């Protein structure tokens, strides 16, 4: 069965590329436009990996990250945070709150795919 990837970002143009990229690698992709929708989507069907943008209105990526880590049933979910802050300070914050990896925008799609595949054991 295909691994499930949840893409959480509020900018449709990057979502379009991410969805295409993940589907091309054979993953099942779902999209959430904000943090609240992401938590709801995970409640309906758990994901193997979440591509999580940090900067979103209301419920930001850090909050989603914490909520995922607070749920005993979702501990297996891997989280890659996508951020527009190119600073180590935010990386330390993301890792402290439970992210598995931290990718700064803009990123190379090839590298991102490689990281996702490494985390999901090749799919």
């Amino acid at each position, binding site marked *: 069965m295909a691994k499930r990837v949840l893409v959480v970002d509020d900018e449709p*143009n990057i979502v379009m590329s991410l969805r295409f990229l993940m589907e091309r690698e054979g993953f099942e992709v779902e999209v959430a436009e904000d943090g609240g929708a992401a938590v709801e989507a995970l409640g309906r069907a758990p994901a193997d990996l979440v591509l999580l943008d940090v900067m979103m209105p209301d419920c930001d990526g850090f909050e989603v990250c914490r909520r995922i880590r607070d749920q005993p049933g979702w501990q297996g979910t891997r989280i890659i945070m996508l951020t527009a802050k190119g600073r180590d300070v935010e990386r*330390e914050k993301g890792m402290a709150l439970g992210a598995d990896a931290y990718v700064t925008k803009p990123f190379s799609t090839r590298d991102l795919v490689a990281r996702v595949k490494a985390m999901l054991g090749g799919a």
Partner: protein
Amino acid sequence: MAPRLVHSGSALLILVIAGGGLVLAGWLIEAGAAPVPLALALGFLLVSLGCLGVWVLQELAWLRPLRTLTREIQLQIHAGPNRRLAASGRHALGDLPAALAALAERTRELRHEQDRALREAGARGDEQRVRLEAVLQSLGDGVIGCSADRRILLFNDAARRILGAPPGLGLDRPLDRLIASGPVRHVQRLLGAGDDHGEASAVSEAFLCTTADGERLLRCRMAPIRRGGGAAGFILEFVDATAHLRAPAGGPGEVARRVRALRAPAASLIAAAEMLGDPDLAPAHRHDFGGVVEREAVLFRARLDDLDHALGALAEAAWPDADLLTSDLGLQAGHRLADAEPPLVLQAIGLPVWLRGDGVHLAMLLEGLVRALAGASGVTRVDLEAARAGSRVRLDLRYAGSPVSPAVLAGWLDRDLPESAGLQRLRDVLERHQAEAWSQDGGRPEESVLRLLLPASSRLATGDAPADLPPRPEFYDFDLMERATATPGLLERPLASLTYVVFDTETTGLDPAGRDEIVQIAAVRIVNRRLLSGETFDRLVDPGRPIPQASSRFHGITDPMVRGRPPIEIALAQFHAFAEGAVLVAHNAAFDLAFLRKAEERAGVRFDQPVLDTLLLSAILHDHTDEHGLDAIAARFGVVLADRHQALGDALGTAEVFLRMIDLLAGRGVRTLGDALRLSERAVALRRRQAEAFGSGARRGVRVGG
């Protein structure tokens, strides 16, 4: 004297005339020359005439001149300096009017001299004032001088112009009506507190504040006016920073925001471009990604322009950044929390770290976060702990409770800053320092931290003393250590439960038995295993003799630095009060103690509390090595020492090392103070034997080491 003479003289005359009249009347009666009534009447007339004559004489010769003289003196007192005492006409007052006239003349001369001196001094003062005014008026920066209670003593035209010529700008008017008082009071306090660190600051670091109406943003510096050791007021110098910092693109935070905004279209562009590079891409997808590239490229260019604009504004604006000690930051925020209800305590613990930033705003940020923590979870005590992490400083607000969720913290950061000081919200302070904040588990049971990641200062690297400094001799001496008259029960108390004062001294040289003296003494307190880096003691001391250059090179303290500082008698009495009731701890304690003991009698104090020596404890704990210098021990414990060879820096380092030793000692079964003291004695005996075996025992108690 004169009136009494006049009176007794005239009384005598009256008696003589009255007697003459009576004798005449008696003689007329006896001689039968006149009938008795006539004789009596004649006698009476004669007596009356005599009296009248005497009265007239007295009036003309004495009383009238005296009255005249009195009026003259009264005139002299109230008249101008040029009036001379008028001489009276005929009188029987002898030299009195002349003497009084001479006195008046002398007084007149003195008055002239005094007036002339006053005029000259006034002219000099005027000249200085005119010069000062000219300087002040020529300054482009606003200058306002204030008394300690912030009433305006002087101001210049630039101040009036920058503040927009407000009606409240006038002499003896309150500054608080013109400029937001919060930041000003904050910096006033900081400058006043300068003595805590031995050095009174001459001028503050630059800080930001707004006008009282919030219309303008000022970039200020403050210089205290000191009189007799106290702060009599201050001079505030300021420029209008409104244009720089409030422009649509202002401040490092704004630049960071715009770089971030640029990354989103860049990510979309690159991702779409890479998709387009896929040769197997379906035509429909190719069209879609082509559209993405077009749209995002437009966005990218617009945001690039924004960034350029923000960078230009940033280059013009000078942001008031300074090197700050985290313990000082804790103190400042603590002051700001003092009026909270219920009281909130923010306590700096552990080794302080130098960070770089804007102290006023960072203190406000800490204050705001502690208040929010207290409001949300009811905590009233928060510890402030700092650690260096690469080019950043990790500043932890440590509290009892669970971590704060990012969403809740984001809400707190959206709160307004307590006072208008250039930035609006707590979040802006983070942005401005390119910092992050989050909450996580505190690594100890029931404890969490609210962690700030802030820019570190480059001080650590530059503040280090040269490495080729001569080592201090290692001292050990039973007598020095054995004076303790421990209060009953103290020896049985666990080490972890005691209060310690960890101290260090800097001296003119290495010979306490000779002429060498203390030039600096510093200490820090440990209570309940917490190093209270906010409760420190630090004094420069005038040693009463020149400091040799070799010693100055060692600790950086020179003759001019100690000139005018209190002598050891005063500093030692103050230190004694600071150390009261605490166990003393020092590295190579006997060396420092020898200097303390030397001055005890003069200071009228006696240090009779127990003393622990980290050097001796290290010799027991780490008997696998001979390296027991402070640097070596700190390295073994992973403690980073800052401000080495400055008394306070060394005291803090020793304290941090000592705290680690308490745990290690407990592991070896050394739990109470008594255990530790007995162990120390064994170490002294052992090291003395070793020293004697190496033949250097002739000079009792001295061996070069650590």
